[in-house]
């Protein structure tokens, strides 16, 4: 079929359509704890949990998860395989050209999976560069850019964090870079690997914020704005409601942020 037209109503009418049908398809990337399919076969994670609350309030009762590769999230969104990306995707200028982001629902530091006891004393990307160690990261992870920015070449790109854990534990690489929570989740229960202290990556002295939000098609501004409004409400009272929703997934006060998509898109 032809690629659908970019909406006839200025700012898009998707929200009304979805309300009408009572369900929304959300794209997730199988990355705990942001969004994944749990052992019970249901979509779960930080982003789907937030989505559930917000869409409910927007009048959409049912959420249909569409699990895809992380790399397929933006193409899939554009191709209308789902209506919104609900995977805790980092907001950065390059992606802002492709999709509309909601304001971030978390701000997260990076961390590494390293061998038990962190034999190389890895704390930041710079250590890896300086010691000439081998780094891995996930396919299409934002961490790759931060690592490249400090001059690390030859990064091993793995399909996902589970492969990363294996790679570190088996000594294929010295560290696997991901978000603080991805990393700490992956090493849970492992006796061969551990997570390093979270840190704030920088490029040219400027901090690179790992702030993630929901992504919408460029044409669906109305939908995004409505979503933002609800998100803002969740953040009221010092993030009270939001914290409650995301706590089960390991998020805490330290991960909350007031940054906006606009600021993050500006770079």
């Amino acid at each position, binding site marked *: 079929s032809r690629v659908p037209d970019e909406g006839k109503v200025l700012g898009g009418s998707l929200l009304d359509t979805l309300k009408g049908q009572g369900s929304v398809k959300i794209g997730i990337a199988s990355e705990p704890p942001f969004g994944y399919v749990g052992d019970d076969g249901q979509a779960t994670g930080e982003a789907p949990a937030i989505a559930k609350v917000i869409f409910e309030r927007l009048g959409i009762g049912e959420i249909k998860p569409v699990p895809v590769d992380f790399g397929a999230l933006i193409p899939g969104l554009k191709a209308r395989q789902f209506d919104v990306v609900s995977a805790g995707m980092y907001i950065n200028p390059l992606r802002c050209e492709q999709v509309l982001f909601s304001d971030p629902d978390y701000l997260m530091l990076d961390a590494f999976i390293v061998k038990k006891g962190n034999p190389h004393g890895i704390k930041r990307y710079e250590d890896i560069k300086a010691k000439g160690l081998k780094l891995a990261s996930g*396919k299409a992870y934002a961490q790759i850019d931060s690592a490249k920015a400090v001059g690390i070449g030859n990064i091993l790109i793995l399909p996902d964090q589970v492969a990363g854990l*294996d790679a570190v534990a088996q000594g294929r690489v010295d560290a696997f870079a991901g978000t603080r929570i991805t990393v700490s989740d992956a090493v849970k229960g492992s006796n061969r690997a551990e997570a390093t202290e979270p840190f704030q990556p920088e490029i040219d002295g400027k901090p690179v914020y790992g702030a993630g939000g929901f992504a919408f098609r460029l044409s669906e501004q109305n939908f995004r704005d409505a979503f933002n409004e609800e998100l803002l409400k969740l953040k009221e009272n010092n993030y009270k409601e939001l914290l409650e929703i995301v706590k089960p997934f390991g998020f805490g006060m330290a991960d909350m942020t007031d940054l906006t998509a606009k600021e993050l898109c500006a770079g």
Partner: protein
Amino acid sequence: MNWDWQVVDDFMPRFWDGVLVTLQALAIGTLIAFALGLVWALAQRSTLMWVRWPVIAVTEFIRNTPLLVQLFFLFYVVPNFGPSMSPLTTGIVGLGLHYSTYTAEVYRAGIDGVPVGQWEAATALSLSKGRTWRAVILPQAIRRVVPPLGNYVVAMLKDSPMIATIGALDMLGEAQAFSNETFTTEALTVVGVAFIVIAYPASLLIRALERRLVR
């Protein structure tokens, strides 16, 4: 649609990296497939039941299940009890192992194609088993097996992009990573064309070889 040569230009260095990985996987995978396939073929003719049957069962199983899942299995499951290998090594081993079950069939047909009179003549001359294989049977079988083996090399080339799914960045893997980062698609098209450009002359070559050998 808008085709941007600049994007193609940017992709080129990584394209060549990918080509290198593809060729590496293909070359070593071919060696494994050719060597292991011969081992299978000989084992399948063993007079010992406990050699013959397990080998037949294993090769049938491998041949009738998807390479992709086998790669996952080698990469995610095998390290739990066996060796853990890098993505590229896993990919090469997977390709080689999978295709060895095809080449085993090719060898089998090649060996069966040697007239029974040759075996009898070797017996009449009292040649030993090993000598019969090395000096009489295999040299004759090889002529028949070269063209089909060549076909499987081309087939393996076409299957090689699967190793990207376990993180060995071949041509397709590089193109996919590049496309993800830049939100462009030229790289995928380039790789698609590259496959045809490599595979077509290769199959022409094999057809020529076939005409020369099978006369």
